C-alpha cells in the first residue's frame, strides 16, 4: 500500500510532463506565492475571489483566513441576512408550502376534469405561478448565498451535504419538504458533528419521503386507522355525501383497496442508501442481509400526514419487534426507535464511514483522485474528535496535499461553482430573479433536482462535455455583457474602462484569473480588442472571453 503511494506521487509529475507539455509542468511546479496561496484557498474554500479579495486574503495571512472560515459563527454576514429577507419562500414553513402545493394540485385536477387537454402546457393560474416562483426562488437563494456570503466555506459545505444527503425536489411531497430540509436539517449541522447531521437527515420528512422509509413497515403490521376501517366499512366518509356501495361485495372491495394501498412490508430503499451512500460506502463491508436488517430497524420511522408537510413520527405499530443483527452487532428486540438511533451512532463513527466521507471531502477540496495521505489525515481527525466536521476540514486544509502545487487548479468547476465564481468575479449583485439558477440548470446542474440518491457528481468527467462547454462560453459572454436580467454587473471593480488593451488585460488577469492568464489567452483576447473602438464593449468582450475561457473553468 505504502509503496503504491510513493510510486504514485513520483509518477504524477512525470506523466504531467508527457501529457500537458512544458507549460503545464511550469505552472504546476513553481512554488506558491502568497497570492497563489490566497487564490488557491479562495478557489477551494470559497466560490472564487471577488475583485480585490486575493490581495486582501494574502495581506492578512492565508492560513489565518482559512481558520476564520472554519469558525463561520464568528463571521459577520449581515449582507446575506438582509438579502434573505427578500426571499418570500423563507417566510413559509413546510405546512404552508404543502397547502400551496395542494391547491395547485386541486386546480390542475379541476382543469383536467374540465377536459383541458393541454396537460403539458405550464399551468398559468396564479396559484401555480406562485408555486413555481417559490421553487425557482429557493434555487436562486442557493446561488445568492454562495455568491454573497462571507461564510464561504460554510456555504461550500452546505452544497457538499446537499449532494451527499441528496433529496429530489420534484418527487411528490418533497416539492414542499425540501426547503425545510435544507434550512433546518442540513444548514444547522453543516459544520457540526457528523453524527448529529446523520440523525437529523434520518428523521427528516424530506429524506423519509424521498427514500420511501415512511412507508416501510414490519410485515403483517396494521395501522390503527386501518383497524378502524375494518370496524367501520365506510372509510370514515360521512354517509350520504358519498353513499357507500350497497352490496357487501362492493364494500369488501373498497376495504380491500384501502388495505391494498397500505404498505405491506419493509422497503429497503433508505436502508441501502444509508449504508452505501450516507455512511459506509459501497465497499464498506456490508451485505444484502445487513440491508434487510437495517430496514427492519427503521420500520416505523415515518411522517405524520406527509401531504400536509407533517413532522417526523415514530409508529410503534409498524416497528419490527424481532431481534436484529447489523454488521455482526446484535440489536436486541424491544427498543423501538432507540434501535435506529443506536445504529445511526454506530454507523456515524464506523471506520468505513470515516474513510468514505473523508475521501469524498478530499475529492471535493483537493483532487478528483484524492491522495491517500489526505484521506488518512481526515480519518485521524475524525477519530480524534468523534466526527467534528470542522476539525476534519481543518486537517485537510492544513495538510500538505491541499497545498501541493500538483493539486492547485486540478479541479474543474461544477456548473454551480462556475456560475457563482463568475458572479463573484464581476462583483455582480443578483436579486431574487431566478436567472442565475436557470443558468446553473442549463449548464446541467438544476439545483435540488438530481433524481438519484447519489447527488451531483464531484468528478470533472461528469461536467465537461461539448454542449456544456459551449453553454459555459455563452453564459460568460451574457453575464459580462450585463444580459442576465436581475443580475447587476459592475465591471468597473474589475478593470476601469480603458483605451489601452494592455491595461485592460492586466486588470482582468489580476482580478478575474488571479494572475494565471496564459500567454495564449493574452494574445487571443488582445487580438479581439484591437479593432473594437467602443471601450465599454471591448471590456465586456474581454471579460466574457476570460470567464468563458479555459483558465476560468478550473479552480
Amino acid at each position, binding site marked *: 500500500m505504502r509503496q503504491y503511494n510513493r510510486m504514485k506521487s513520483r509518477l504524477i509529475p512525470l506523466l504531467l510532463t508527457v501529457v*500537458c507539455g512544458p507549460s503545464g509542468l511550469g505552472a504546476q511546479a513553481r512554488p506558491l506565492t502568497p497570492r497563489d496561496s490566497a487564490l488557491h484557498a479562495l478557489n477551494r474554500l470559497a466560490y472564487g475571489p471577488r475583485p480585490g479579495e486575493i490581495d486582501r486574503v494574502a495581506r492578512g495571512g492565508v492560513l489565518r483566513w482559512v481558520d476564520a472560515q472554519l469558525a463561520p459563527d464568528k463571521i459577520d454576514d449581515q449582507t446575506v441576512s438582509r438579502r434573505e429577507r427578500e426571499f418570500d419562500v423563507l417566510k413559509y414553513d413546510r405546512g404552508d408550502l404543502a397547502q400551496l402545493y395542494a391547491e395547485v394540485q386541486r386546480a390542475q385536477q379541476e382543469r383536467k376534469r374540465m377536459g383541458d387537454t393541454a396537460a*403539458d402546457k405550464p399551468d398559468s393560474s396564479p396559484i401555480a405561478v406562485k408555486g413555481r416562483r417559490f421553487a425557482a426562488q429557493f434555487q436562486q437563494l442557493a446561488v445568492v448565498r454562495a455568491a454573497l456570503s462571507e461564510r464561504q466555506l460554510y456555504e461550500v459545505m452546505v452544497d457538499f451535504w446537499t449532494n451527499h444527503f441528496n433529496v429530489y425536489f420534484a418527487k411528490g411531497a418533497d416539492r414542499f419538504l425540501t426547503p425545510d430540509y435544507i434550512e433546518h436539517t442540513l444548514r444547522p449541522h453543516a459544520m457540526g458533528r457528523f453524527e448529529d447531521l446523520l440523525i437529523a437527515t434520518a428523521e427528516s420528512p424530506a429524506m423519509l419521503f424521498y427514500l420511501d422509509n415512511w412507508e416501510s413497515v414490519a410485515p403483517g403490521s396494521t395501522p390503527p386507522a386501518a383497524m378502524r376501517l375494518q370496524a367501520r366499512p365506510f372509510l370514515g366518509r360521512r354517509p350520504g355525501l358519498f353513499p357507500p356501495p350497497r352490496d357487501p361485495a362492493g364494500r369488501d372491495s373498497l376495504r380491500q383497496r384501502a388495505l391494498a394501498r397500505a404498505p405491506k412490508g419493509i422497503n429497503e430503499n433508505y436502508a441501502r442508501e444509508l449504508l452505501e451512500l450516507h455512511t459506509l460506502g459501497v*465497499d464498506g463491508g456490508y451485505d444484502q442481509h445487513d440491508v434487510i436488517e437495517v430496514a427492519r430497524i427503521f420500520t416505523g420511522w415515518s411522517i405524520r400526514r406527509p401531504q400536509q408537510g407533517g413532522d417526523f413520527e415514530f409508529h410503534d405499530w409498524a416497528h419490527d419487534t424481532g431481534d436484529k443483527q447489523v454488521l455482526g452487532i446484535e440489536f436486541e428486540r424491544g427498543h423501538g426507535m432507540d434501535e435506529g438511533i443506536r445504529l445511526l451512532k454506530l454507523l456515524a463513527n464506523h471506520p468505513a464511514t470515516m474513510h468514505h466521507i473523508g475521501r469524498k471531502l478530499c475529492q471535493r477540496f483537493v483532487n478528483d483522485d484524492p491522495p491517500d495521505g489526505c484521506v488518512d489525515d481526515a480519518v485521524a481527525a475524525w477519530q480524534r474528535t468523534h466526527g467534528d466536521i470542522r476539525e476534519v476540514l481543518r486537517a485537510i486544509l492544513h495538510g500538505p496535499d491541499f497545498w501541493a502545487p500538483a493539486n492547485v487548479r486540478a479541479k474543474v468547476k461544477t456548473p454551480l461553482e462556475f456560475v457563482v465564481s463568475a458572479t463573484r468575479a464581476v462583483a455582480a449583485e443578483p436579486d431574487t430573479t431566478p436567472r442565475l439558477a436557470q443558468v446553473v440548470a442549463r449548464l446541467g446542474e438544476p439545483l435540488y433536482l438530481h433524481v438519484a440518491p447519489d447527488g451531483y457528481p464531484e468528478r470533472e468527467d*461528469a461536467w465537461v462535455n461539448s454542449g456544456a462547454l*459551449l453553454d459555459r462560453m455563452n453564459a460568460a459572454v451574457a453575464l459580462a455583457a450585463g444580459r442576465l436580467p436581475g443580475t447587476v454587473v459592475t465591471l468597473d471593480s474589475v478593470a476601469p474602462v480603458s483605451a489601452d488593451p494592455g491595461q485592460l488585460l492586466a486588470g482582468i488577469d489580476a482580478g478575474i484569473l488571479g494572475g494565471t492568464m496564459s500567454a495564449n489567452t493574452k494574445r487571443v483576447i488582445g487580438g479581439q480588442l484591437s479593432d473594437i473602438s467602443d471601450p465599454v464593449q471591448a471590456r465586456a468582450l474581454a471579460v466574457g472571453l476570460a470567464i468563458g*475561457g*479555459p483558465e476560468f473553468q478550473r479552480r
Partner: protein
Amino acid sequence: MTISRRVFVKSGGLALFSLGLDPLFLARAAYAANLPAAPFRALSRPILVCLFQRGAVDGLNMIVPHGDPRYYSERPRIAVPGSDVIDLDGYFGLHPRLAPLKPLWDSKRLAAIHAIGSPDATRSHFDAQDYMESGTPGVKATPDGWLNRYCQHDREHQDTPFRAVAFGPELPRILAGTAPSLAIADLKAFGLRAPQPAARDRLTRAFEELYAGSATGLLSTSSQEAFQAVQTLQRVDPTQYQPANGADYPRGRLGKAMLEIAQLIKADVGLQVAFADVTGWDTHVNQGASEGQLAARLAELGQTLAAFAQDLGEKLDDVVVLTMSEFGRTVRENGNSGTDHGHATAMLVLGGPVNGGRMLGKWPGLDPANRFEGRDVAVTTDFRDLFAEVLARHLGARDLSAIFPGFTPDPTRFPGAISV
C-alpha cells in the same frame, strides 16, 4: 486498513489510469488523435435511435392483449375496449392513439415485443433506469452506459463528432463513458450565440483559439469535439430544415428531438447512435383508457414516430428506432384508476431493417399463476437480448460481452427483431 486494501484492489484494474490522471481524458485524447481534418462524408451505414420512455410505460395499454379476457376483468375502468383497439394479430393490438404506426406495421417495418424487461426485481424508477442504461441490471457501480461501451468497442466509426448524440441538456447515463458523445439541447442553439452571424463566427473563432492554446485535459478534448461539431453544423445550417414528404412532427420536446435526429441523419454528418427521452409515463392516477392521460402521451409518441419515418423516406432503410422503458405496470388497475410499478413491459422496434409486422417474444399470459410475484407481467425476454441483437445484427457489433459485462449473449435467445 482493510478498507484501503479493498479500495486498492478494486481500483487495481484501472491501475494504469489511476495515477493521478483522468482515464476519460486519456481515452478521449486517443480518440481525438484520430480525427481527420477534412469534413466527414458518410456512406450509407446503419443508425440506431434509442428512445427512452422515462417513468415506466404501461405496456399493456400500449400494446393491448385484447384477446385475453383477464385484461378486461383486471382493468374495469382503464382497459382499452376491443372495439377501439387496432388489431395486429388477433390477440394483440395497438392503442387507438398509436394508429399512425399501423401502416408501418403493415409494411413490416414495425415490430413489438411484450414481456420484456430486467432480470432485476427492483420497482424503483431510479435503479431500473440506471440498470437499463448501464446495461448491467443489479450492478450500480458500472461507470458507463451500454451505448457508450458499444462506441468504445466498435471503433471503426470514430471519425465524426456526431457519431453519438444525446438530445437533451445532459449526457444521459446510457451514453456516459470514455467514447466521445455530444449532448445537444437544441440543435439550432448549439454553438456560440450572438446577434449577427459575423459576430457569432468571430466569437466562435476566439473561443476556439483560447481552448486550442490553453486548455488541458478533458477541457481540451471536449472543446475540440464541440468546435468540430459547430463547424460541421454550419455546413448543415439547422435553421433552414424542412421535414420531407409532408411529415408533421408534433410540437414539444419529443417531436423536436426526433426532427433534429432526422435532420442529422439526412445531413450525413456521421450520426450512428442517437438518444432521446420522453417523460410522463408514470400513470399512478387517472391513467385513462382510449382517451385520457396515457392516450395523450401515446398520441405524441405515435405521431412523432410516424412523422420521423415519413420524413426519412428511403433513409429509413438504414435506421432502427428502439423504444425502451424501465419497467411495466401492474396488471390490475389500482384504486385511483391508475397502475402502479410493475415488472415487464412492451417495446417497439421500427425501421427498414426490422423484421416487422410481428409480435416478438414469449407471452407469459395474464394468469396470476404465471405473473411475477403474483401481480405483474413476467419477464420472458431479458432486455439485453433485444439490445444485443440490435447491436449485433443492425450495427454489426462483434464484442457483445464487452458491451454487456456479466452477460453471455446467445443468438438463440435473440427475439428476432432484425431481418437477417
